[in-house]
């Protein structure tokens, strides 16, 4: 928890060798890290497929076909990459600034719900309607994150707990509103559909990014947001202050940063991106709000952020790979008899592999090598003498 280091006399972070890393080391560690995880990832995946008596190569072919095999397939990949990147972006904004926003899922749900409602009950010209809905979805995600932010700032309640609990509140609240208040409405076949809001008006459909595929304008939006976050943290005073507030509140306060304001901004920004993601998903893909559609989206975002090491540009790549796996796994299931959940298992194993302390392993290895080299050179010196 972020507070611990602020307490004087009680510093627990151990002296880490990383202090002495050289530039070359950093690059090597990065290569070492991603190649090792990737190899482990492939091995684990192959093993899981093989255990289901199927050929891993066929499975990979299935994934390839489903993600790059045709324009439609590629569109599917992008379609899945967009929400992955957006939730990942929401996680990165928060985690980079030291805020543990585990409530992305709930914020996505609220954003999606608001989008679903506004899409049904309003009708504006197309562009205006979309903008109006997305702005409202963003704001609702933002407002949903105000509650944990206030609890944290003024009542010192850890956001770990509040954000997580707010997920349940969001999920069940939207479910309640859909089932009990809206009572479903009629779906395409004229039945009462209790699990979702009615289909939104055509004016609110998000236009395609690649025509005749499932890739909508969500894709460029996701990319833009990633770059905006990268820019924020790298070049702006605001980003600098956010980072300092997140890493050491006391330090930032003594330095004259408006900590209350900045802390709120982190929370709200993260919530806003999550809300936007919910809105985009509803307008772009489902065209209605389904109960529980946000389930796992928050956790996936956090996993993706973790793999990307909180780097907004890395996020785009990781999100894209996520999209490949998602789009591909469905095709794989159709082509070979491998359950698509297999891919999910491997995805999360990848998160585990990437979390290994590669830096420590590398440095220990290097330490040993240095020692050996030193001893050898001394031996030579004494031999010469």
């Amino acid at each position, binding site marked *: 928890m972020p507070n611990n*280091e*602020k307490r004087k006399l009680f510093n627990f972070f151990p002296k880490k*060798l990383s*202090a002495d890393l050289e530039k070359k080391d950093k690059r090597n560690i990065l290569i070492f890290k991603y190649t090792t995880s990737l190899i482990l990832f492939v091995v684990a995946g192959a093993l899981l497929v093989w255990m289901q008596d199927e050929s891993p190569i066929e499975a990979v072919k299935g994934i390839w076909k489903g993600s790059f095999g045709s324009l439609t397939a590629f569109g599917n990949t992008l379609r899945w990459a967009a929400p992955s990147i957006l939730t990942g972006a929401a996680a990165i904004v928060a985690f980079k600034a030291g805020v543990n926003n585990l409530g992305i899922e709930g914020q996505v749900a609220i954003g999606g719900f608001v989008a679903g409602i506004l899409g049904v009950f309003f009708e504006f010209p197309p562009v205006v309607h979309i903008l109006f809905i997305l702005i409202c979805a963003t704001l609702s995600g933002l407002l949903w994150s105000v509650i944990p932010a206030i609890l944290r700032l003024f009542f010192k309640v850890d956001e770990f707990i509040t954000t997580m609990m707010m997920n349940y509140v969001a999920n069940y609240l939207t479910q309640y509103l859909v089932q009990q208040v809206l009572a479903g409405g009629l779906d395409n076949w004229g039945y009462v559909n209790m699990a979702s809001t009615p289909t939104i008006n055509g004016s609110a459909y998000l236009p395609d990014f690649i025509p005749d595929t499932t890739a909508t304008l969500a894709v460029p939006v996701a990319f833009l947001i990633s770059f905006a976050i990268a820019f924020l943290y790298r070049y702006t005073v*605001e*980003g600098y202050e956010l980072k300092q507030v997140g890493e050491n509140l006391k330090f930032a306060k003594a330095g004259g940063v408006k900590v209350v304001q900045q802390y709120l901004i982190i929370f709200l920004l993260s919530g806003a991106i999550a809300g936007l993601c919910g809105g985009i998903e509803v307008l772009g893909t489902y065209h209605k709000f389904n109960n529980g559609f946000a389930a796992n989206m928050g956790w996936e975002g956090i996993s993706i952020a973790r793999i990307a090491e909180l780097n907004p540009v890395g996020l785009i790549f990781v999100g894209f790979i996520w999209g490949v796996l998602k789009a591909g796994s469905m095709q794989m299931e159709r082509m070979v008899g491998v359950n698509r959940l297999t891919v999910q298992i491997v995805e999360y194993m990848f998160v585990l592999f990437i979390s290994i302390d590669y830096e420590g392993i590398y440095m220990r290895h290097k330490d040993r090598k240095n020692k050996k080299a*030193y001893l050898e050179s001394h031996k030579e010196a004494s031999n010469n003498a």
Partner: protein
Amino acid sequence: MGNSEYILEMRNIRKTFGELVANDNVNLKVRKGTVHSIIGENGAGKSTLMNILTDIHKADSGDILLNGEKVHFKNSLDAARRGIGMIYQEFMLYRDLSVFDNIILGFEKKKWGFIIDRKACRKEIERICSEYSFNIPLDAIVKDLSVAMLQQVEIVKVLYRGADIIIMDEPTSVLTPQGIQGLFRAIRNLVGMGKTIIFISHKLKEVLEISDYITIMNHGRVVAEVLPNEVDEAKLASLMVGRDVILQANKVEPKIGDVLLSVKGLTVKDKDEIVRVKNVDFEIHSGEILGIAGVAGSGQQWIVEALFGLRRPEHGSQIIFDGKDITYVSPREHRLDGIGYVPQDRMGSGVNAKSSLWENSIMGYHIAHGFKNKYLVDTKQANEFTDEIVEQFDVRRQANKDKVAALSGGNIQKMVVGREFLQRNKLLIIEDPTRGIDVGAIEFIWQKIIDLAQEGVAVLLISHELNEVMQLSDTIKVIYNGQLYDGGRHGELTEEEIGLIMLGGNADAK
């Protein structure tokens, strides 16, 4: 061969970090039952040597011998089992656990291999306490105890772990004069019972008082080994730094100007509504150094926090700076008004250890001075300012983007002081500016403070080192139990007289 003359020998220890040679063939021999001090400037390699001894770092080469036998530690725990105990400057205790739990943690005695035998543990701790005459409340929660008490807990902890050699890293920097005497009694007691102490300190007077042997390190090498009766403070200091050091501030006639800061009726309560500062009045003129001396915990922290806007003073308090009421304004406005602050809590308010050196260097500067573009961080300007601090204050670092956590405590302190001193502030609030830094750098920072005052900067100096306050201040105030007492002008009262006020001996002569 348990009959070696030395309980501990370190032979030809070499350790490099990249290009930096932290230990260059260091030899150290420690006799059993002695207090062996190791002194040296920041970055001289003392900490590295001790980290190798406790196996936090692995040496590139060299041997460690315990009682004449070569040993190879597997890890830090192994080192602890072999009888090497370390007491860190920042205590390694869990705040929310009891003293008892903290002591046994990791070294629990067990029944049937998996149940903690609390009774046996307690018996053992009680035996240690009575044998070495420590009196600690075993069931108290750590966060409720005073620093001096925590130090005793740390000592009992390493004794419980079976330490024969106890390393103390800057043990006195957090203690009051009385606490230091208590610690020294404990050390003498421990040595009398056959334990060996390795004592690391910057305070040469204390080193001379307590040591049997002194090893002096400089730039990763041992430069001298002396006996305390062979040398004096000045000689030690010059050996350490490699040149003559004057342990005397070069005080010049102050150029005192108009009143810059005036504090009236300042009353501050802590979060439990306990009054920590009572009705304090004082004024600082530009060009004046006002020093506040006092035993730690007398209310210094609350005065400073209130002055810098980190804590809201009670109703009726008034702080006027440069004709402007700043009683209730935020630290941000203090920065904008030209008030600098060197906090006592270095790793908390002073720096963000997780960030880089340059990010730490521009904190506050980015508000008071800003960049060419209001919204963007100008990397070039940030690096220039960082370089200025690094050069002028001799911060030893490899690159500006190094993490602050990688710097030694003394270097971090120099960075913090440099950051505040180089911002052309009108008023500087300085708490313990020389905590944990070596004599050479102390001399330098003292000179800087005097120079700034000469340029017309008002300085409020709060220090737990009475000597520092007496050397630098034009006006001396003494804080005792939240109230401020007059300590005279520079040189007016003797150390003993001020010491008496610090302990409340002059409470009626306000």
